[in-house]
């Protein structure tokens, strides 16, 4: 029950407050919008509109999507220029999804890991288009790293520890360690206390540097790039094992890709080092040039995969 006095008081307070608010707000005017007009307005845009069919370039998440995006944009620009059609970058969370893009024809070409390539090659939906030459070689290594202050010096020391894998299909990020353990008569589930996937090499490096994992196996190319770009991150790590050389991650296409496009693409890659824009794109990728494919350099990976994945 409210007394008349309190009502009077409230109305007085109301008037005063209104005056104050009015004084504070009145003089400014802002653009007006109708938030509750459902009938008009925009909806989520459908896929790319009609126009020239873009060249769809898929990149496996060797490194994080954002760095990938920044790194590959000049290459895409170069390809778009060379092929005279727009280029679109496709990224997915896992190597398997990238493999699927090639397998189902949703991507025209893809940068994949050697481990993923031998998988696609075995299943018949991937063939090599070109391979990059890095530091004068077409090979790289898997590096097993631990934190710099870690007491472990060998892979065997990491028994029962937490270990970070990159991707189920990754060569350096998983296959090599699986192979090494198989040789020791072990498997990752039995040997390590715990394992998890980071879905990119730089994530694995960061996981070890931040102490999330006691060890990880990473791509030496990514490692070296980070050594240049983030030396303080690398300074917190120690490499305890370096694998024999493996074939670098290649550029692949679906074997059924239209031959003229395949030819044009191969040409574009192989002559990239002779084009100024191509050089810029190469520099971004830290690749000296692209070479014609040499399937033999993936023999080591094929062998390991055969043994580890139980291929016939």
């Amino acid at each position, binding site marked *: 029950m409210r007394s008349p006095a309190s009502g009077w008081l409230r109305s007085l307070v109301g008037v005063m407050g209104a005056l104050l*608010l009015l004084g504070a707000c009145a003089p400014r005017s802002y653009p007006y919008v*109708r938030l509750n007009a459902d009938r008009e307005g925009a*909806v989520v845009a459908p896929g790319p509109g009609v126009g020239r069919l873009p060249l769809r370039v898929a990149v496996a998440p060797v490194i994080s999507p954002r760095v990938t995006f920044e790194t590959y944009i000049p290459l895409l620009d170069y390809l778009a220029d060379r092929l005279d059609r727009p280029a679109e970058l496709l990224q997915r969370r896992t190597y398997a999804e990238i493999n699927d893009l090639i397998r189902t024809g949703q991507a025209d070409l893809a940068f994949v890991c050697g481990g993923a390539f031998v998988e696609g090659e075995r299943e018949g939906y991937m063939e090599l288009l070109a391979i990059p030459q890095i530091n004068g070689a077409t090979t790289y290594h898997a590096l097993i790293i631990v934190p710099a202050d870690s007491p472990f010096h060998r892979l065997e020391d990491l028994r029962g520890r937490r270990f970070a894998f990159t991707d189920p299909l990754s060569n350096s990020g998983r296959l090599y360690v699986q192979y090494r353990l198989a040789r020791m008569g072990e498997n990752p589930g039995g040997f390590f206390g715990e394992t998890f996937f980071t879905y990119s090499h730089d994530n694995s490096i960061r996981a070890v540097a931040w102490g999330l994992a006691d060890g990880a196996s990473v791509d030496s190319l990514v490692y070296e790039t980070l050594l240049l770009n983030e030396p303080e991150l690398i300074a917190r790590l120690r490499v305890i094992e370096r694998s024999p050389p493996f074939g670098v991650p290649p550029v692949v296409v679906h074997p059924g890709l239209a031959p003229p496009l395949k030819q044009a693409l191969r040409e574009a890659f192989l002559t990239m080092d002779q084009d100024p824009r191509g050089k810029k794109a190469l520099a971004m990728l830290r690749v000296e040039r692209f070479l014609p494919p040499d399937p033999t350099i993936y023999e080591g990976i094929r062998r390991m995969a055969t043994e580890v994945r139980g291929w016939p």
Partner: protein
Amino acid sequence: MAVEKGGARWQGERMRGMWRRITGVSIRYKLLGMVLGVILLLGLAVTLQVQSQLAAQLRQSLHERGLALARDLAEDSIDLILTQNLFEVHQKLRSTLETNPDVRYIIILDSEGKVIAHSFPVRVPADLLPLNPIPPGQPWSVQILDSDEGLLTDIAFPILGGQLGVVRLGLSHRRLEQAVWVATERLIATTLFALLVGGIAALLLTRVLSRPILELVDAVRAAGQGDLSRRPRVWMADEIGELTAAFNAMMDHLLRYQGELLRQNRELRAMNAVARALSEARSLPEITDVALRSVMEAMGFPAGWILLQEDGEAAPVLAAWHGLSPGFAARLKDFIPGCPCARQIQQSGGGIHLVQWSSCPALEEARRAGGPEARFDRHLSVALMSRDRILGVLNLLIPSSEAPPEMIEWVEAIGRQIAVALDAERQRQRRMEELRQREAMRRQLLERILSAQEEERRRIARELHDEAGQALTSLRVSLGLLEREAHQPEAVRARVAELKRLTEEIMENLHRLAIDLRPAILDHLGLVAALRQYIEACRRRYGLDIQLETIGLGEGRLSPRVEIALYRILQEALTNVVRHAQATRVDVLLERRGDRIIAVVEDNGIGFDPERAMRNGHLGLFGIRERVEQLGGTLILESAPGSGTTLVVEVPDAHSDPDRG
């Protein structure tokens, strides 16, 4: 124009009137108004300040929170967008929206402005999309929008530097405004509460503060209307307290001065009444009567009497009385010769005395006899003094209550005033007496002069008859004889010789007569020569040794008036010496000192009492004095029986005749 002017004047007067009405409000309400005004102003200022501050801070924090959310969203959605994970993007929007109640909407646009994801139920409002573009060079953009749901802060944050698009985050101001509103409401409620408490406190305070002032004002107003007795209380030892104390002190002084003034006024009125009464009185009895009545009337004495003291040792006499019963007045006359109050005043040489009934025989008797005067147990005895002489006593009966001392002082002053009037009256009477005497003397002198003239004529007639007639008879007889003896040469010769002797004798007698009447030499040779001749004649006639000495008179002549007057004065003086002094030697000195002439006649005769001689109307002396006074000079007569007489006359040598000038 005139109307406008009139209007302006009217306005001005109205303003002044209002100002008067505002400033004329009691100090109590002024203080109250001041306190309430300050509280209100303070409350309003604090409310406004807090409100604007709070609003600004909340808006700032909303802005920052929104920016952080947008940045996180932009950051988090990079990988999702790059990996085409739109479902995840949508999930992120939903979770952000759910965990942040202020977030009204989130839209993610691609680099071409197409919507990738949004939080609206169906569509993104068409008005919203074109708003808040990020200006080139800016890291983000914030824009406040008005909407059908109130104000919104729209934040646009680029994804991957804008390469992947923009996050648009809308934050509703509703909660912010609610918070501001709640704070404002509380502040206003607090202010109103403070107004209530402050008002009560101010009322009490102003009561405390204004009460002394109002009391003071009342007292001042009362004082203005003549009531000087009000003394406001000093409540506090502050300025008002000091003012009150000062006011009280001032009122005390004022009261005292007023009392004094009133008393002085009363006394002055009394003195004035006495003086007026005295100035109208014409005789001693009237003066005493009027003085007594007016003193009693003016100063409120019920009864009194005046004793007058004649010269010397004579007993005082009852000169006037008033308010006394006839019996007391009659007894008073008997008691006066032995009255102690007059004696006491004589002994103390004046002043004022309070005489108890026991020291006053008259009062004592009245008490004993049970007369009406028995109710007075004492009386004031005031000397009536003028020029240090006690002329009388003013006695005033006092009833039971004692006379205030300052009144005694004033009674004394009035006593002096009465005495001065008495003195003046007495002097006037004495002068009148003197005048009357002198007039009588003058009449006597005139008679004497007339009789002297007769005498002189008789003497001249006798002398002419006795001497000249006798000689002329002898001369006629001798001539007859000569006629008869004409033929006897011897006899003729002898007879002629006798005739010649007779003729010479007649001539000498005539000459003496002439000189006595008026010496011709005075006209021709002046005073000194005439005096010499006269003195020589006296010497010869009366055988007196008379010496004349003159100093500084030389050849110069005095004015004829002075010469004849001095001649007559000296002639009269010498005649007096010859007639009365029985002197053997007289020295006469005539000297000029400046423009004054001094004549001295000194004899070694028997002397006399000059005053008595004057009073008894000795005509010779009176004539001398008349002549000296006519010339404007002075006469000194020094003499005593048996020791000679010296008469000194000093007169101015006025060349012009003052009688005619």
